[in-house]
C-alpha cells in the first residue's frame, strides 16, 4: 500500500485533488462518460492503492471530490465546441454555447462557462461550510431515534417522488433497493431471504449492486443505442476563434445571472434527489425570463448565442457540487450519484460515519479530545476549496485542451469502462460470483432505464436501508415496543405527514 506521505514536499491530498480534478475535466469533456462513472471506476483502484487505514480516507475523498468538481466544468467543453453535452447537466449550455462558437467566439464562450462554473462552485462550497454544521447540530439536538427514523423515511419518499417522471416507478425502484439490501442481513443467525444459497449468505456486495445498476446499466443502454443507430458518429468542431478575454463590463453584465443561478443550484443541491440537470434547467429558464426584460439592443436572444445563457446554466449546475454534501455530511443521506460514491468511499474505508455526529466537538472519551471525524470533515472542506482554487487557476486552461476527448468513439470507450469496472469489482471481492452479481444488477439497471424507472432511488435506498432498519429497531426498543413510535413525537409525526404529502403531491403533478 502507498503511504500517505508527501511526494516531493507536496502533501498527498493536494496531489490527489489535483489528479482528480484533471481527470474530472477530462471525463466531463468526454460524451458518454460522466463524473459518477469516473468516481465509480476510480474508487476500487484508489482503495487498492491506499488500503483501508484512516490515512487513506482524505486522499481518496480528495480525488473523488476533484473528479466531481472537474466533471461539471468539463461538461461544457463539447457542449460549446461540438453541440454535444459532455454531461447531461450541460445540455442547456449547447443552446447558447454552440451558436457563440459558430460565430467564432468559442474561446469567449469557454471563458464564460469557466468563470460562471468556478463562481457557482465557490458559492456553493461556502454555503456548505456555513450550513452543514448548523444543520447537523440541529439534528443532534432535536432529533431522537424515532425522529431520525422518520427523517430517513421522508428522505427516501422525497427521492423516490422527485427523481424521474413517474412517482410509482420511483417508489418501486426504492422498494427494490431496500429489498436487495435486506438479503442476508437482519439480527437472527439465519441469513434472511437467501433462498438457502450459501453464496448469498454474506449479502450482496455494495459495490456490485451500486456499480452494476449505475454504471453497467448505463453502459448496456448506451451500447444498445449505438447498436440501433446506423448513422456514423460524425462531429465537426467549429473554429475556436481568436482569444477574447472577459472585460469588466462583461463580468458586470453576467454577475446577476451567475448569482441567481448559483443560489438556485445551491438550494437544489442541498435537497436530496434533485440533480444538477434540473438545477441547470431552472437556472437557464429563470435567466431567460429576466433577460427578456433586461436585454440590451442588438444583443442575441437566448438560444442564439447569449453569453448570459451559458453563465446561468454553468453557474447553476456547478453550484450543486458543494451543496450536495450538506445532506451527506449533516444527515448521512446521499442526494445524488456523486454523493453516493463519496458515501461508498467512507463506508468502504471505514473510520468515518457521515451524519450529525461528525460535528460533535468532543471525541467521546473526554472533552479534551477532539472528535477525529470533525477533523476529517474540515479536511474534506479544505479539499473542496483546494479543488476550487485549481478550478480558478488552471481549470480554464485545461478546459481548452480537452476538446479532443469528444472525438473518442463511444462504441470503443464503453466496453473498456465495462471491463475496468468488472476488474475493479473482482480485485475487491476476489470471486467470479461477484462479477456475475454485478452483471445481474447491470441488467436490472438497463431494464429500469428502458421502462423509464430511475435507478437512483434504488441505489440510495440500498445504501440507507441498513441504517433505516437499525434506527427503527432501536427506536422501537427505546420507546418500550410502542408500535406507534413514529406518530407519538410531534417532529416524527410531521416528517411522516410530509413524506405522505410529498408522494401525494408529486402523484398529482403531470408526468414528464
Amino acid at each position, binding site marked *: 500500500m502507498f503511504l500517505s506521505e508527501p511526494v516531493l514536499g507536496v502533501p498527498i491530498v493536494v496531489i490527489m485533488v489535483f489528479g482528480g480534478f484533471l481527470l474530472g475535466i477530462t471525463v466531463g469533456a468526454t460524451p458518454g462518460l460522466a463524473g459518477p462513472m469516473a468516481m465509480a471506476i476510480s474508487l476500487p483502484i484508489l482503495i487498492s492503492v491506499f488500503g483501508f487505514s484512516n490515512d487513506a480516507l482524505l486522499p481518496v475523498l480528495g480525488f473523488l471530490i476533484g473528479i466531481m468538481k472537474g466533471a461539471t466544468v468539463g461538461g461544457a467543453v463539447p457542449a460549446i465546441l461540438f453541440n454535444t453535452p459532455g454531461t447531461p447537466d450541460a445540455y442547456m449550455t449547447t443552446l447558447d454555447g454552440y451558436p457563440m462558437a459558430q460565430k467564432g467566439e468559442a474561446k469567449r464562450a469557454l471563458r464564460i462557462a469557466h468563470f460562471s462554473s468556478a463562481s457557482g462552485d465557490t458559492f456553493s462550497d461556502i454555503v456548505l461550510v456555513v450550513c452543514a454544521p448548523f444543520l447537523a447540530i440541529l439534528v443532534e439536538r432535536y432529533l431522537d431515534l424515532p425522529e431520525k427514523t422518520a427523517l430517513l423515511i421522508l428522505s427516501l419518499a422525497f427521492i423516490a417522488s422527485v427523481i424521474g417522471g413517474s412517482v410509482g416507478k420511483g417508489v418501486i425502484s426504492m*422498494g427494490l433497493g431496500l429489498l436487495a439490501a*435486506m438479503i442476508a442481513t437482519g439480527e437472527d443467525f439465519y441469513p434472511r431471504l437467501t433462498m438457502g444459497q450459501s453464496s448469498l449468505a454474506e449479502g450482496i456486495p455494495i459495490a456490485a449492486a451500486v456499480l452494476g445498476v449505475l454504471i453497467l446499466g448505463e453502459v448496456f443502454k448506451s451500447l444498445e443505442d449505438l*447498436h440501433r443507430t446506423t448513422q456514423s458518429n460524425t462531429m465537426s468542431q467549429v473554429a475556436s476563434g481568436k482569444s477574447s478575454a472577459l472585460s469588466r463590463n462583461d463580468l458586470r453584465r453576467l454577475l446577476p445571472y451567475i448569482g441567481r443561478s448559483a443560489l438556485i443550484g445551491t438550494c437544489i443541491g442541498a435537497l436530496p434527489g434533485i440533480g444538477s440537470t434540473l438545477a441547470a434547467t431552472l437556472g437557464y429558464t429563470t435567466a431567460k425570463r429576466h433577460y427578456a426584460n433586461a436585454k440590451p439592443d442588438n444583443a442575441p436572444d437566448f438560444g442564439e448565442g447569449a453569453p448570459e445563457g451559458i453563465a446561468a446554466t454553468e453557474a447553476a449546475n456547478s453550484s450543486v457540487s458543494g451543496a450536495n454534501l450538506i445532506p451527506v455530511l449533516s444527515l448521512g443521506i446521499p442526494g445524488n450519484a456523486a454523493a453516493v460514491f463519496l458515501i461508498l468511499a467512507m463506508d468502504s474505508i471505514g473510520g468515518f460515519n457521515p451524519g450529525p455526529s461528525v460535528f460533535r466537538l468532543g471525541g467521546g472519551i473526554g472533552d479534551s479530545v477532539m472528535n477525529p471525524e470533525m477533523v476529517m470533515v474540515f479536511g474534506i472542506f479544505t479539499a473542496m476549496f483546494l479543488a476550487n482554487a485549481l478550478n480558478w487557476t488552471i481549470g480554464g486552461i485545461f478546459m481548452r485542451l480537452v476538446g479532443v476527448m469528444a472525438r473518442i468513439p463511444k462504441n470503443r470507450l464503453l466496453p473498456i469502462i465495462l471491463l475496468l469496472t468488472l476488474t475493479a469489482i473482482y480485485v475487491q471481492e476476489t470471486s*467470479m460470483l461477484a462479477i456475475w452479481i454485478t452483471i445481474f444488477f447491470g441488467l436490472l439497471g438497463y431494464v429500469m432505464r428502458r421502462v423509464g424507472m430511475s435507478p437512483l432511488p434504488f441505489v440510495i435506498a440500498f445504501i440507507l436501508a441498513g441504517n433505516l432498519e437499525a434506527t427503527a429497531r432501536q427506536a422501537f*426498543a427505546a420507546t418500550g415496543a410502542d408500535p406507534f413510535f413514529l406518530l407519538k413525537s410531534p417532529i416524527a409525526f410531521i416528517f411522516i405527514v410530509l413524506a405522505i404529502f410529498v408522494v401525494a403531491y408529486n402523484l398529482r403533478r403531470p*408526468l414528464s
Partner: protein
Amino acid sequence: MKSGSSSDRWLALFFLAFSILIVFVWIPLDTETGLVEKVRRKFVIGDALAPTITGVIITLGAIMTWLQPSQGHTFTRKNVIWILQLLAIFAISLIIMRYTGPIVAMGFEGGGYRPLRATPPWNYIGFLVGGTMMIGGLIATASRRLSIRGFAIGFATSLIIALLYDMPFDDLLLPPNGDV
C-alpha cells in the same frame, strides 16, 4: 409489451405479482423470525418486518404506476434479444477467462494452474484472452461489425488493466485467479 401506457400497466401488474410473492411466499419461507418477536419478555422487531414493509412499498408503487401510467417507455422484444446477446458475450468471455489459464497450464506444467496463479505470465493468460473476447465482442455488437481492430483494442486494454493492477500490488489477484 406494447407501447405507452399499456406497457406501464403490464409493469404494474408484474410488480404487483412480485410483491405478493415476496410478502406471502418468499418472506414466510425464508426468514426465521416473524414480524415481531418476544425476547426476554420484551417485544423486538423481527427479521421479517422490514422486508414485509418493503413488499407493501412495492405494492403501493405498482398501484401508483397502474393509476398513473406514463408514455414513451416500452420494453420490447428487441430489448430482450439485446439482453440475450449481452449474456452470450459475457458467458463466453467469462468461461474463456476462467478456464484458459488452467487448460494451458495442464499442457506445460505438471502441478496444474493453482501454484502459478500469481506468477506472470500465467496469471495474465485467462484475463487477457477473456478480456479481449469481452471488449472485442461488445465493440462488434455495438457497431454491428466484426473487426480485428476491436479485438486489438480489447487486447491492449486488457493488458493495460492487468499491468495496472498487477505491477504495483503484490496482493491483488486478477480475474479469475481467486477462483482457481
